[in-house]
């Protein structure tokens, strides 16, 4: 992944292959602290994510993984370097990239199906098609019986499933997740992880998923590629490429082995950086 020329911007590479779906080129992000000091959040990160890949970014607290995700989503801009989508600089958010946050961010005054329909309206789906499409996705996440419920009537897991249905109903090329299952109980998290695996498999290589997590088991379960970051300032430290069929289980021998390897290197980083 590091053998592409840094800073290269092209819509086709030298072999005529399409560019990576998402790319970071020597990306740096700095912030000004309240004390007026410049703090580096992301430190010269270069990364390619190809269409159809499922990538998880893992790292100690404050390592810049959420910053990277926000930049890919177009919610934040690089200080220097480039963030590219299909070979073109990312100028802002777009319907081609859906984002799942830790909090589902549903509209509390709309019903479950209303929330999904609202997203469909924004991507230009005609009114007479919205209900069927929304209900189709609610069926996918097992929420058909709660379509007319208000968000406050749902459990945390059901709210996040609604957010997943809303994100996927718009048929985005890219799904970005910022600790999307972090606030869920163990059972709800497992259900959502299975849903996400299934949706990704069924997309047959069309959809690209990039998730940020601090849960090593979740990363090894879901991803083709787990990228481990250093403590702040965030750089890429190690990559694990996992070739195992899906759906995977947490107690699969390979998943367990990868978890223990990543855990070891991550603990080392956490102890260096004083993070948690």
């Amino acid at each position: 992944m590091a053998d592409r020329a840094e800073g290269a911007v092209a819509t086709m590479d030298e072999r005529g292959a399409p560019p990576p779906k998402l790319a970071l080129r020597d990306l740096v992000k700095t912030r000004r602290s309240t004390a007026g000091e410049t703090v580096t959040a992301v430190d010269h990160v270069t990364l390619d994510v190809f269409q159809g890949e499922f990538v998880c970014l893992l790292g100690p607290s404050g390592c810049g993984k959420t910053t990277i995700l926000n930049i890919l989503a177009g919610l934040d801009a690089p200080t220097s370097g480039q963030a590219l989508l299909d070979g073109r600089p990312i100028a802002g958010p777009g319907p081609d990239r859906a984002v799942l946050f830790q909090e589902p961010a549903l509209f509390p005054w709309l019903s479950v199906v209303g929330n999904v329909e609202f997203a469909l309206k924004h991507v230009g789906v005609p009114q007479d098609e919205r209900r069927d499409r929304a209900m189709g996705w609610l069926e996918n996440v097992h929420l058909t019986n709660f379509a007319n419920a208000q968000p406050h009537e749902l459990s945390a897991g059901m709210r996040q499933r609604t957010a997943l249905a809303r994100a996927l109903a718009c048929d985005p090329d890219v799904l970005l997740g910022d600790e999307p299952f972090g606030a869920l109980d163990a059972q709800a998290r497992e259900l959502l992880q299975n849903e996400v695996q299934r949706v990704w498999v069924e997309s047959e290589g069309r959809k690209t998923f990039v998730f940020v997590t601090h849960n090593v088991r979740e990363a090894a379960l879901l991803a083709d590629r787990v990228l481990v970051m250093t403590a702040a300032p965030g750089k890429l430290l190690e990559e694990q490429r996992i070739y195992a069929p899906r759906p995977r289980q947490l107690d699969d021998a390979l998943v367990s082995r990868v978890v223990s390897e990543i855990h070891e290197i991550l603990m080392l980083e956490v102890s260096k950086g004083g993070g948690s």
Partner: protein
Amino acid sequence: MADDPVPKPSTQERLADLTDDERLVLAKVADIVQKIKYGTVVLVIQDGKVVQIEMAEKFRLR
């Protein structure tokens, strides 16, 4: 006193006796070993047969 144990076949003899299925598995594992520098290979065995070969490859990025 027990009789002398039957001598174990040498590696060469064992290799010569492998079935086609066993050779195929070994060839696939050898391919993986040639391709990756650091990593893990897991053979999933059911009813005495290798039904799946899984792999994880590790890269140091700095």
